[in-house]
């Protein structure tokens, strides 16, 4: 079995996955069990954030624990433009993405003087500084936050252009928007991975001095990598803000917006394009199903669901520390072909 049939296998898996992802919410819509569409939305959103984090964490190899700052910047900018100026959320998303990438570049450039763990704590520092600003800045309503009024458009096209879905189709609509954004993110990430940028990032990760020796400006390209990550997080923040119909500091700056995508990336396979997608498909449903089954009933509020979740995470880490995509899938596929 040579490389081309391996690629064939990859295409087949990809095609089947795409069909499944497109068809997934339809039986749920017909049966009215839309809760699992929301789970699907959260999987897609976290997968998208994970693909974004993979750029700075997986390829450029920098510890970044503060991308949630840019999630919040995106969410706030789109919400303010919508509430105060009546801008379309899609225009707001564009503005939020550009602003987040620019702010990230300005903030991160000085921080790149710090390396390794010192840089990691600096990204945490920006988050710690952003929190009280978000909670006290009156322009963005302080800790009360912004509420997004419902102004949905007519018909399917109107709903999509207004990025607002209400009633029975709410979960369905946001699911497909998230799927589209994830597909776009994966497409762009693939371009980065295959292109000049991807090589520069990996060169800096593997040997910073060596990369500088061949003329790669490591500080510049670390900033570029983090700004790409920031742009993806900002887009995710806009989507989440309109889904939640509110943006407030405790929600938008929640630590989960960095830990969940990082965990999804690590569990799927860090530095691999599809790693975060696989990781999110494993982690998010487990946590959601846990909290609806073990988190309710007589033992509600005793954290049983999170204990089990913690045990599962610990087991995955201990049994497969290099990520699930690092398993010998190719060899297994070959064996399957030979035996059949």
């Amino acid at each position: 079995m040579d490389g081309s049939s391996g690629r064939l296998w990859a295409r087949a898996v990809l095609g089947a996955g795409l069909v499944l992802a497109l068809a997934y919410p339809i039986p749920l819509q017909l049966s009215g069990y839309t809760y699992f569409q929301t789970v699907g939305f959260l999987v897609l959103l976290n997968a998208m954030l994970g693909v974004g984090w993979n750029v700075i964490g997986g390829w450029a190899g920098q510890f970044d624990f503060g991308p949630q700052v840019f999630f919040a910047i995106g969410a706030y900018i789109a919400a303010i433009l919508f509430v105060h100026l009546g801008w379309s959320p899609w225009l707001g998303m564009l503005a939020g993405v550009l602003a987040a990438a620019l702010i990230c570049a300005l903030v991160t450039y000085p921080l790149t003087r710090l390396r390794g763990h010192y840089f990691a704590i600096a990204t945490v520092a920006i988050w710690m500084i952003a929190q009280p600003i978000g909670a006290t800045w009156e322009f963005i309503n302080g800790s009360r936050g912004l509420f997004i009024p419902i102004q949905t458009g007519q018909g399917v096209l109107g709903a999509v252009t207004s990025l607002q879905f209400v009633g029975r189709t709410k979960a369905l609509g946001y699911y497909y928007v998230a799927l589209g954004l994830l597909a776009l993110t994966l497409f762009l990430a693939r371009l980065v991975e295959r292109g000049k940028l991807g090589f520069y990032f990996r060169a800096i990760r593997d040997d910073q001095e060596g990369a500088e020796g061949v003329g790669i400006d490591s500080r510049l390209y670390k900033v570029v990598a983090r700004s790409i990550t920031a742009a993806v997080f900002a887009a995710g923040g806009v989507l989440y803000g309109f889904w939640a119909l509110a943006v407030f500091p405790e929600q938008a700056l929640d630590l989960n917006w960095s830990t969940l995508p990082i965990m999804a990336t690590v569990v799927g396979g860090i530095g691999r394009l599809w790693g975060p997608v696989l990781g999110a498909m494993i982690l998010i449903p487990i946590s959601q199903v846990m909290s609806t089954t073990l988190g309710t009933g007589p033992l509600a509020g005793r954290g049983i669901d999170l204990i089990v979740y913690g045990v599962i995470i610990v087991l995955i880490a201990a049994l497969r520390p290099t990520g699930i995509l690092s398993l010998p899938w190719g060899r297994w596929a070959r064996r399957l072909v030979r035996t059949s």
Partner: protein
Amino acid sequence: MTLLLQAVVNGLEMGFLYALVAVGLTIIWGLMEMINFAHGEFLMLGMFGAWWLSVTFGLDPLVSLVPVGLAMYALGVLIYQQLMRRVQRGDPFTQIFATIGLLFLLQNSAVAVFTSDYRYLSNTVLTRLSGSSLRLLGVSLGVPLLIGALLALGLFLALYLLIDRTEFGLALQATAEDREAAMLVGIRPQHMFAVAWGLGAALVAVAGAILSNFFAVFPQVGLSFTVLAYAIVALGGFGSILGTLLAALVVGVVQSVTTVYLPPAFKDAFVFASYILIGLLRPQGLFGRF
């Protein structure tokens, strides 16, 4: 002016306790370069241990910090041997993943056993002394916090001597420096890592037992201390024990002075702003070797 001086003194007292909270992380993260997101959960377990021993057996936290420290040493070694030793084979990011799982597990086990209620210790030696203070040059020193601070300082200096002046400490540093070379001279790295995790867990749990005199005990208390401890270790410089002490004092003073002039929400923001400022001037931390 007295207000400022008072704030500085209070900050220094708190700083010594922060030093003991952070020094366990200096060993695990700063020296052995392993990431532990559950550091604050060890502190939380130490607080609950002291609270439980006080409520059921009437042991004062100043006494129960011995059994609490020993139990947490065992837990730290166990966590390294059963979990982190395997995790070390993967990417460093896997350590983040694994210890976040550990954080969920430990924190929510405490929720399951003790519920999320806030608990306070009263009728301990230190809480009974509350209100008594020493006056010095117009500045008052709270006696309970002063005793806690001195205790923390004593433990801290003992650890410093252990790491810097004994054969065991040198073996630990050698393992951190170059694992293969350490093996060549007969040091077992796995053993050293296990001891480092044991020491790290025990020290922060002892700090938790002392802090249970001053702070509410509840399962979610850990995270804010974890974040602060990481800032202190990085500010002090990687692998430097005395750097950790100095950084902890800086953090205590910055927090305490900030709250005099600004809303309390900003106290950690200024700690982290000073981290960035100092980091830009000295990218290797105050006393870091690299």
